[in-house]
């Protein structure tokens, strides 16, 4: 029996006594930062605060009407029915009819407006979080699982949403009803009021016991949901691999482990929070009995009237119901805070902030200088990914980056686009350090064709237009033709208006690359970064688009990563990278004369 209480249905406890004692000693409940979260949400309510005041007014009205109802019924029972006075009864009932009508109207209006407010607030929270994500540095995303972040956007925010929908009104109306009932009770009979109030301290302790546990459990639960989400997203996105390697069974087992964790935290969270209404019920019933029994005794001795007891039994309900609601709401609020905290945790991540920088309107000429640049992806990496790289590329020139994979070529480009911050040295564009240049200014004049082509779930046309949002249809068509993508686009079911599916399923990787080249062609950058832009494209097609690419590179500073000799040979400068270092640089002729690494690379390839 004891064992069942400790581990019901075999659920291992999550919160131990030691945990709770530890918290007690620390005196700081790390489980939640109430004030911060509530303030954050209050800020989001923003210009709707006026409407919120109106909602509160409606709550006052409906709460008042909720008090008037039973009062009038008490009057009817006491003054009319028990005294057998039936004159004026119809009048009071008529009044009551209106009271109830307005009560219903007020109830509806308050939820009507509150839903608008809360959903607008949630909308702001969601879009705010999304906007914030847009401003976070690339390094933030390197360390997070997609599904986990997605969970914050949906599950956690949904938690807040449900609470805002109902809790705000509930809490406020509960407090009002509570205050109102207490006042009326005091006016009617201080003695009976005291009897009703006896249970309050018990409620307080019970709630404290429960919420101490739930506030932690809710957090754990949201975390478990996030992890499960992460796993689902990754497995489904990588389904081809799962199938190719026949790992369905193992995925199912791994899923079961994560799912089991959620089940366990969920069980405890649900159980503890489920205690609240039960405890409240017990206390309610006790209070109800006390009112009836003690009231009965008092009536026996003539201290109170029977009407008063009838009213008080009702009031004891009126009094405990809001307390009940408050207790339940408190719990919901806790779970919302657990969700909101995870959202605000991301909001607190430092963003790529350029607000303080001038040069917003600076027009790049495209002189690029690396001065002794050193970079680590992780602080605790032993060897840097880029170490002490220095070079200069004049405006309008083309530089080819060559070297083995993992030598740091892509990283050089990513640093130039300021996806990451250098750890040592400086990168200068036109003599201005890029950290003094707003990212907007830098990136708006840079076009980057990435190694992995990505297309959005939009039409082909919109995907190409992504490079220049105000491009005309003619421009899109032109770019597509230049990139040699026009022919295959025309074969798609709806041509340029074909909506590409989630993973770009039915078009090939090479075709994706053609589209991303078209996307770059349509932008009009000062600096062009081509990272293996044509790696999946067959060489015959590549020859066709080469001309377009060359035209594109003309007059722009270009950095190119490629294996093809022809591309490299045409570059004004060649940088040879090895293990993060720049080991050789110069023109094709210079490097060949030097007979160094580049020379050996070239001669090797001919043998």
């Amino acid at each position, binding site marked *: 029996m004891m064992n069942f209480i400790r581990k019901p249905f075999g659920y291992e406890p999550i919160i131990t006594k030691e945990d709770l004692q530890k918290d007690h000693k620390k005196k700081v409940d790390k489980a939640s930062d109430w004030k911060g979260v509530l303030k954050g949400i209050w800020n989001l309510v923003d210009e709707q605060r006026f409407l919120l005041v109106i909602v509160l007014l409606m709550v006052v009205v409906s709460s008042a009407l909720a008090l008037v109802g039973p009062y009038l019924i008490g009057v009817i029972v006491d003054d009319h029915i028990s005294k057998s006075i039936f004159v004026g009864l119809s009048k009071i009932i008529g009044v009551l009819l209106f009271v109830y009508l307005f009560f219903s109207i007020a109830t509806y209006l308050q939820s009507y407006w509150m839903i608008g407010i809360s959903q607008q607030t949630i909308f702001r929270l969601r879009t705010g979080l999304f906007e914030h994500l847009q401003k976070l540095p690339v390094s933030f995303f390197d360390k997070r699982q997609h599904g986990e972040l997605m969970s914050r956007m949906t599950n956690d925010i949904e938690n807040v949403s449900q609470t805002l929908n109902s809790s705000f009104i509930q809490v406020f109306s509960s407090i009002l009803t509570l205050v109102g009932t207490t006042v009326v009770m005091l006016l009617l009979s201080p003695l009976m009021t005291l009897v009703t109030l006896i249970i309050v301290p018990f409620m307080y302790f019970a709630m404290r016991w429960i919420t101490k546990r739930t506030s932690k459990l809710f957090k754990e639960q949201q975390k478990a949901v996030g992890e499960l989400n992460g796993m689902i997203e990754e497995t489904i996105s990588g389904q081809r691999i799962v199938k190719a390697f*026949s790992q369905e069974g193992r995925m199912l087992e791994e899923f079961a482990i994560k799912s089991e964790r959620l089940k366990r935290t969920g069980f405890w969270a649900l159980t503890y929070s489920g205690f609240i209404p039960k405890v409240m019920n017990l206390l309610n019933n006790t209070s109800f009995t006390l009112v009836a029994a003690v009231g009965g005794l008092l009536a026996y001795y003539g201290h109170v009237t029977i009407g008063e007891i009838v009213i008080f039994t009702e009031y004891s309900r009126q009094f405990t119901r809001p307390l009940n609601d408050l207790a339940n709401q408190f719990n919901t609020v806790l779970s919302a805070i657990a969700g909101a905290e995870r959202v605000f945790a991301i909001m607190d991540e430092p963003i790529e902030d350029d607000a303080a920088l001038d040069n917003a309107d600076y027009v790049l000429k495209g002189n690029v200088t690396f001065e002794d640049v050193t970079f680590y992806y992780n602080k605790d990496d032993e060897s840097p990914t880029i170490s002490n790289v220095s070079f200069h590329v004049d405006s309008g020139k083309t530089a080819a980056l060559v070297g083995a994979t993992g030598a740091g070529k892509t990283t050089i480009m990513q640093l130039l686009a300021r996806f990451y911050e250098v750890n040592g040295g400086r990168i200068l564009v036109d003599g201005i350090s890029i950290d003094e240049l707003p990212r907007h200014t830098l990136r708006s004049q840079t*076009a980057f064709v990435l190694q992995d082509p990505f297309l959005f779930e939009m039409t082909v046309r919109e995907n190409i237009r992504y490079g220049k949002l105000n491009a005309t249809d003619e421009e899109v068509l032109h770019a597509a033709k230049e990139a040699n993508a026009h022919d295959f686009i025309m074969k798609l079911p709806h041509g340029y208006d074909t909506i590409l599916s989630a993973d770009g*399923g039915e078009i090939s990787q090479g075709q994706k690359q053609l589209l991303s080249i078209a996307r770059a062609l349509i932008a009009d950058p000062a600096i062009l970064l081509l990272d293996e832009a044509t790696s999946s494209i067959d060489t015959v097609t590549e020859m066709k688009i080469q001309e377009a690419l060359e035209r594109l590179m003309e007059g722009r500073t270009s950095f190119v990563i490629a294996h093809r000799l022809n591309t490299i040979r045409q570059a004004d400068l060649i940088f040879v990278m090895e293990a993060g270092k720049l080991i050789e640089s110069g023109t094709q002729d210079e490097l060949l004369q030097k007979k160094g690494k580049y020379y050996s690379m070239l001669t090797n390839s001919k043998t």
Partner: protein
Amino acid sequence: MKTILSYLSPYKILVIVALVLMLVELSVELVQPLLIAIIIDDGILAEDQQAIILWGSIMLGISFLAFLAGIINTYIASHIVQSYGFDIRQALFKKVQAFTMATFLKFPTASLITRLTTDVTITQNLIFMGLRIMLRAPLLVVGSIIMSFIVNPYLAMFLVIGAPFLVVFLYIMSRNGLKLFSKVQKRVDQVTRKIQENLQAVRLIKAYLRGNFESSRFASVADNLKVDNVKAFRIMELILPVLLFVMNVSLLAVLWFGAKEIQTGDVELGELVAIINYAMRMTGAFSMFAFIIIFFSRAKASSERMEEVLKVEEGIEIINEDSEGTTPGIGEIEFQHVSFHYPTTDLPVLKDVSFKVQPGSKLAIMGATGSGKSTLLNLIPRFFDTTEGTILIDGIDVKEWPLKELRKIIGLVPQQSILFTGSIEENLGWGDQAATEELLREAANQAQIHESIEQFPDQYNTRVGQKGVNLSGGQKQRLSIARALVRKPEILLLDDSTSALDVSTENALWEALEEENATMLVITQKIRTAKGADHILLLEEGQVSAYGTHDELMKDSTLYKAIAESQQEGGEHDELHS
């Protein structure tokens, strides 16, 4: 909803126990007004102090009984709900794992994620309510009505006058709710999809500075969700005020006619008070009703979405876990008049493709972008089934092969290197949990990645995947090759998997792969790679345009010649050795 019930059936007994406990609580609540009537009539009015104390203690005693029942009910209900959630998540995930690639085209990832998480939670909420209060509200109402009929049938009649109207009203509301909430869930899918897309395209969005553009696109998706949510909830919130009003009017009727009856002496005061009390309890229960309808409609919408997944019959792979891999494949591949188009379009991707690859030999597949090369490879492990024609492995139609056996002898390296969150070691051993460390290192060596791994700070324990370090494109490709090699496949399918490798690394890789003696199908853009193959298959718009050795094709195929010329030494596409 049937699905939900069927997943609850293993917990039938517990459900019954929980419901019984709930009934205990409920009866206590129903008896209370009766006891109060007794206390008033027999105790206070009769001036009997003993009776007050006696009935008072009985009231206290039974409320404690109700409390105990409630606490036990909580434990049981939580257990049922969480077990149900676990079971249905497993079932869903299992089903999804069995989807064919074609079925995945119908269910976007984002939608599957919502179905496996949010939708499950929504139905869990309903069940939890169901086991604790949902039945309670209707029962409380019914119970209250019965009790009031016992107390005084005439007055009780007025309580149920509005009932027919309410039934119709609630039915309409729940129908509406179902529609509205399914729409809301679809919107949630879209929000999820949008954020997933953005996470995948972080660099692209930053490079093109489309943060604001994306935010505004997201805002429109989020706005749709908001609008539909507002619409759904605003309609559903109508329920409560309407219910309350109808109930309150009935209460007034009771009062009015009650007063008259008391006047004539047909009704006692205590009876009227009790009925008023019941009426007020019903009012309380009615606010629960509003909740229930909302929860019910939401859960129904969600359960239909889960059922859509669970009910998928076609497009399911049958994987027999028990089949023993006793017959090692030899690795012969034959395509017989294979034609194919994707299920979503009628556009043919492959047309009448036939060829045969001898065990242990190497076939290079070349062709223009979009000529169907990757599609051809994807048909071999049966990611998709041919529209026409057959593919034979070791002389047996792939459709006859047990899927697990078939895929076991195939090592696939896809064009896009997908790694999973975890260490390098975990990723290498991903296809074969039993692989020894030695085997992993051997595969890494063959794939020319061992040295690079050794240089990472945590070597084989370096974390990769979504939460991992930045690997270069070539490093990912080689890890992905090593992962396939660990399983010692008889057939190795390489989908342009060496595009990011420099020449010397690639040469070393091919040399190492020769030792494997596997049948290799290699998609490549490079003549150099093709030269090393026994045969070359040239695809043009889904059809075989040429087949033969390098020398043969140089003679016969103008397209092949054009490709070769473009890559000739010193030509347009000669490559750099590093």
